[in-house]
């Protein structure tokens, strides 16, 4: 399992190394990765039938309960198959769609990372691990959405997507830690056993809020939905992948995964019902006002996600079955519609529905794909969508007291979604072919085969539901509500209320399609209300933040290092002074001090002399040299008090600092004159106060009883456990190796910062 997950990351690195080949003819070869993974997961299918689960565990940080635990059950396998299966088609499609693009290798690199991260999210059994992958998907999708980074709109929407999903991710992390601290485990599998304890805990509400924040931002639920339409700035294969099949479903996955742990509680169910309900209605309504193909699809995706959240909120076994089926239905038809939209864009250069028409005459296979996908989204009998829709209505009808309202909401949403699906899948291909598109011809097979395959699958599953029933759907239901009674999927339920509702949906949607023409005018009419949309409100508050930070920066960061130092020192003095006044008893116990030797006195005198020279000289270089004398004297103190490691480091650092200072000061005027007595007085007051505070604190520290336990542990175990006699070094490379590893990484980042600052040459045209 671990190799399967890591392969995506390894491939990403390989792609960067062999960039030239990937950009050239062998772009298609990258498809082998998702295809191979898809086959691997396919072979796992028989193993997880009847609600069984496969576990893989690799130790990572066992002392903190964080391990590389992976669990394959119905739910995670369904998602894995979608990720790799649709991934394979998208990789294949992109090899033609972006043929000859100069950054094709980067594109595949990001896509591989994204795919691997997504797989990680759905397969992790450890919440910390899940969070790591979760954020990785946000980051890789940031790169993918902003792939056309010459376009300011593209950059803006990628930042927006990252801000929202990343922000949600932080809250999710907090939720996970809270969950972990209550159930005393980070393993989701083990949390199941403490489900009842969790629900009774006082922090249950907080856990829900934090978890929902993560899931709703990721899955674009109202009011966080607006990043998703913006994310359509990404190349179409990415939109198809990120926004139909995978990333946005991560939130759904999360909710589904925690349904057995945290679900069946009014707070959980009602929140999901309300949020999902609002989202599905709001965005289905918005979808029909769009004229951009991708805009329509984006809003209908949000609506479908809302539907899934809504169903999870309903919570019954029936609902779980509906969730399982609808995830497959939606992934199949939405990916197909996105890919056909991409073909239309690629071949005609426009995505405006009001202009596209009659294209079936020139690209028949694409039209068939679009038609089949639209029919499945409409839920026509004989498609998989029909089965999905049936299950949704069955869920809402049996949802207790509110059933009429919930059913009405579901029917209304479905009518609007049907209309949106027809707009995207049928409208561009029907009618007469305009003069402008006469020259359009059928593109390469690599473009139309993937959507056609997906659309045909949607049909095949609809006609023979047994294809997915026991192998895919039932294990998902078992994972969502363990021990649920198994009801096989049926094509035909006989004449009942549900069929009537389906009929109403179809009639309503098709009627709407014939009656109403999409137009840019209507979209503009809707835009009048934009000022109260969540997006505008959020951007406005973000603007306030901008204003504040400008004000703050201008006040405090005026570009003079001396004023920065002043602010920091004064602030520190204030803080320390306050602490000293409030609760520290200052007393000097001379017996605690070690005996003062001749060495100490000598060094002390040298330091005093050096400091005097530093502040009295008028040459910068002399000042720096005298300062370094102070540093070396402290090194000597370290040597005397037997800390050779510290002394060595301090000595070398001091030397390098002096070199650095000399280099920097080289260009400055040779002499500095401080005429302003006011400044001198101010600076000396500040430094005297700060110095005395530090001295008092140093004396205080000596009075505190020292906790020797840690140092004793290191001293005793350095040789036994780490085979080293130098405790300092053993700590650095062994006991605290993680810290060191991250520290050197931080150093590298700092060096990159310095390097780019020094090498930055802003041309006059770029300077605004």
């Amino acid at each position, binding site marked *: 399992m671990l190799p399967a997950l890591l392969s995506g990351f390894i491939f990403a690195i390989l792609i960067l190394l062999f960039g030239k080949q990937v950009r050239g003819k062998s772009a298609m070869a990258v498809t082998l990765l998702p295809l191979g993974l898809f086959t691997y997961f396919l072979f796992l299918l028989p193993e997880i039938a009847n609600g069984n689960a496969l576990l893989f565990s690799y130790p990572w940080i066992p002392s903190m309960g964080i391990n590389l635990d992976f669990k394959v059950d119905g739910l995670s396998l369904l998602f894995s198959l979608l990720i790799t299966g649709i991934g394979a088609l998208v990789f294949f499609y992109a090899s033609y769609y972006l043929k000859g693009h100069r950054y094709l290798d980067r594109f595949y690199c990001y896509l591989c990372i994204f795919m691997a991260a997504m797989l990680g999210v759905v397969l992790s059994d450890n919440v910390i691990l899940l969070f790591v992958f979760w954020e990785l998907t946000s980051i890789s999708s940031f790169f993918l959405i902003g792939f056309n980074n010459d376009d300011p709109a593209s950059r803006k929407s990628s930042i927006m997507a990252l801000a929202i999903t990343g922000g949600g991710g932080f809250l999710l992390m907090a939720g996970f830690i809270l969950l972990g601290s209550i159930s005393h485990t980070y393993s989701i599998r083990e949390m199941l056993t403490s489900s009842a304890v969790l629900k009774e805990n006082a922090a249950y509400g907080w856990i829900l809020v934090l978890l929902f924040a993560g899931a709703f931002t990721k899955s674009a639920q109202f009011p966080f939905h607006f990043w998703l339409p913006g994310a359509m700035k990404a190349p179409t294969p990415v939109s198809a992948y990120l926004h139909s099949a995978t990333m946005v479903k991560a939130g759904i996955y999360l909710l589904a995964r925690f349904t057995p742990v945290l679900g069946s509680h009014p707070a959980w169910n009602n929140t999901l019902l309300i949020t999902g309900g609002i989202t599905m209605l709001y965005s289905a309504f918005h979808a029909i006002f769009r004229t951009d193909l991708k805009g329509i699809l984006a809003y209908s995706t949000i609506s479908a996600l809302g539907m899934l959240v809504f169903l999870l909120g309903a919570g019954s076994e029936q609902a779980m079955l509906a969730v399982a089926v609808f995830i497959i239905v939606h992934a199949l038809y939405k990916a197909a519609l996105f890919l056909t939209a991409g073909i239309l864009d690629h071949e005609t250069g426009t995505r405006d529905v009001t202009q596209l028409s009659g294209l079936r005459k020139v690209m028949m296979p694409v039209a068939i794909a679009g038609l089949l996908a639209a029919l499945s989204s409409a839920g026509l009998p004989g498609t998989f969508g029909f089965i999905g829709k049936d299950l949704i209505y069955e869920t809402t009808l049996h949802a207790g007291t509110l059933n009429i309202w919930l059913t009405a909401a579901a029917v209304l949403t479905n009518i609007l979604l049907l209309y949106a699906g027809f707009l995207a899948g049928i409208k561009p291909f029907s009618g007469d072919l305009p003069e402008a598109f006469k020259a359009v011809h059928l593109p390469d097979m690599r473009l139309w085969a993937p959507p056609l395959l997906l659309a045909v699958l949607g049909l095949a599953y609809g006609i023979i539901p047994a294809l997915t029933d026991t192998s895919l759907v039932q294990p998902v239901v078992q994972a969502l509500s363990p021990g649920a009674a198994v009801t096989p999927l049926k094509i035909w339920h006989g004449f009942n209320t549900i069929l009537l509702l389906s009929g109403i949906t179809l009639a309503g949607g098709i009627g709407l399609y014939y009656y109403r023409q999409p137009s840019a005018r209507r979209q503009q009419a809707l835009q009048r209300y934009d000022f109260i949309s969540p997006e505008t409100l959020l951007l406005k508050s973000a603007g306030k933040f901008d204003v504040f930070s400008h004000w703050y920066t201008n006040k405090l960061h005026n570009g003079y290092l001396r004023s920065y130092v002043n602010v920091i020192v004064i602030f520190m003095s204030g803080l320390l002074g306050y602490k000293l006044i409030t609760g520290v008893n200052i007393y000097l116990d001379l017996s605690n001090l070690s005996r003062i030797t001749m060495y100490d006195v000598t060094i002390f005198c040298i330091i005093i002399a050096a400091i005097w020279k530093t502040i009295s000289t008028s040459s910068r270089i002399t000042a720096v040299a005298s300062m370094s004398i102070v540093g070396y004297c402290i090194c000597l103190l370290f040597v005397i008090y037997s800390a050779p490691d510290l002394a060595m480091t301090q000595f070398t650092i001091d030397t390098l600092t002096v070199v650095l200072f000399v280099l920097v000061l080289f260009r400055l005027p040779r002499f500095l004159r401080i005429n302003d007595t006011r400044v001198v007085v101010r600076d000396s007051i500040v430094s005297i106060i700060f110095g005395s505070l530090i001295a008092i604190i140093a004396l205080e520290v000596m009075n505190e009883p020292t906790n020797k336990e840690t140092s004793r542990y290191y001293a005793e175990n350095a040789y036994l456990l780490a085979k080293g006699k130098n405790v300092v070094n*053993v700590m650095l490379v062994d006991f605290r190796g993680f810290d*060191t*590893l991250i520290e050197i990484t931080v150093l590298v980042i700092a060096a990159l910062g310095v390097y780019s600052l020094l090498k930055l040459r802003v041309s006059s045209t770029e300077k605004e």
Partner: protein
Amino acid sequence: MKSVILRTASNYLLPLLLLFSVFILLRGHYSPGGGFVGGLMASIAFVLHAFANKLENTRKLLRFPPGSFIPVGLAIGFLSGLAPVFVGKPFLTALWFDTPVLIVGLVGTPLFFDIGVFFVVIGITLTILFNISENIL
């Protein structure tokens, strides 16, 4: 800097200081020393050489741009941490060879980790110092 004495001295000091820095690096696990200090010393050796013999000559002597030490060091450090994963132990667990090597003593993944730190430190200090002096001198 046009000082014959400094230039001559630096030519002899460079190999000596480098040797010393490697010595400091290797003995780190048993006596004062280690990758960080060793790396700083090696960079001081190069900086001294650059002062005496002009920057271009030091760059030529290094052959690779100093920045290229950084990824090498990071990779060594990371891989030495990753090595135990392949024998089924957690990340960054120390692995040791049984027989001690002359001067160095026992050899294990912490030593390689230290070597990684050594290279990163050299890379970073030289990148910063060389670039600043290039901008200024």
